[in-house]
């Protein structure tokens, strides 16, 4: 069962434009993470948000965790061609002895020069 829905599924924009990717769920998570994945490789962590309402910035990327810890957004300012990739959100659910990480449906971003 897919618990996390991302939108949009695909996004193609010109270099220099801004964009926002959304990650929504009906479940509450202990934390929420954003990963970026290149073709043929494993995802790499960008950021973890833990507290409801938390905002984190990573250069041109701004991440926000919803107040109820059910949703998140990723905003990219002045996109560059190097931002191209598959962006994945993942919610951590505490279970016996570990976390289960439930991934979103993914947003494929293409930034055109």
């Amino acid at each position, binding site marked *: 069962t*897919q618990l*996390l829905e*991302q939108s949009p599924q695909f996004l193609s924009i010109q270099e220099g434009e801004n964009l926002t990717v959304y990650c929504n769920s009906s479940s509450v998570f*202990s*934390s929420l*993470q954003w*990963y970026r994945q290149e073709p*043929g*490789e*494993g*995802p*790499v*962590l960008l950021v*973890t948000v*833990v507290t409801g309402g938390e905002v984190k910035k990573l250069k041109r990327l701004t991440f926000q965790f919803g107040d109820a810890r059910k949703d998140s957004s990723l905003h990219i300012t002045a996109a560059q061609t190097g931002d191209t990739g*598959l962006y*994945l959100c*993942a919610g*951590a659910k*505490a*279970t*016996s*002895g*570990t*976390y*289960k*990480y*439930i*991934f*979103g*449906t*993914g947003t*494929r971003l293409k930034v055109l020069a």
Partner: protein
Amino acid sequence: SQTIHQWPATLVQPVGSPLSLECTVEGTSNPNLYWYRQAAGRGLQLLFYSVGIGQISSEVPQNLSASRPQDRQFILSSKKLLLSDSGFYLCAWSKIRTSGYTGELFFGEGSRLTVL
């Protein structure tokens, strides 16, 4: 530093044949281990996770099984592959869950399985 490796990187198998994908972690002990499957350009589906040797939790009823014979070794298997088993399989590890730890997954390079 910690590293994670999985193999083989690419596999083409006929329907009905067996499968074995292996994943090992180095540079850490007592990791939590995970197997995910990814359809082309889509999100990751959690298949199995393990908190210790011989301890396997299954998330999705399917044609696959997992085993953890050693602390840092995780194996994904099937006795008879189906066409629907095709996909990109990813092994990942995380530190054990402790107070204040917010979690992070470290992924292997992935194994692309094509069932014909």
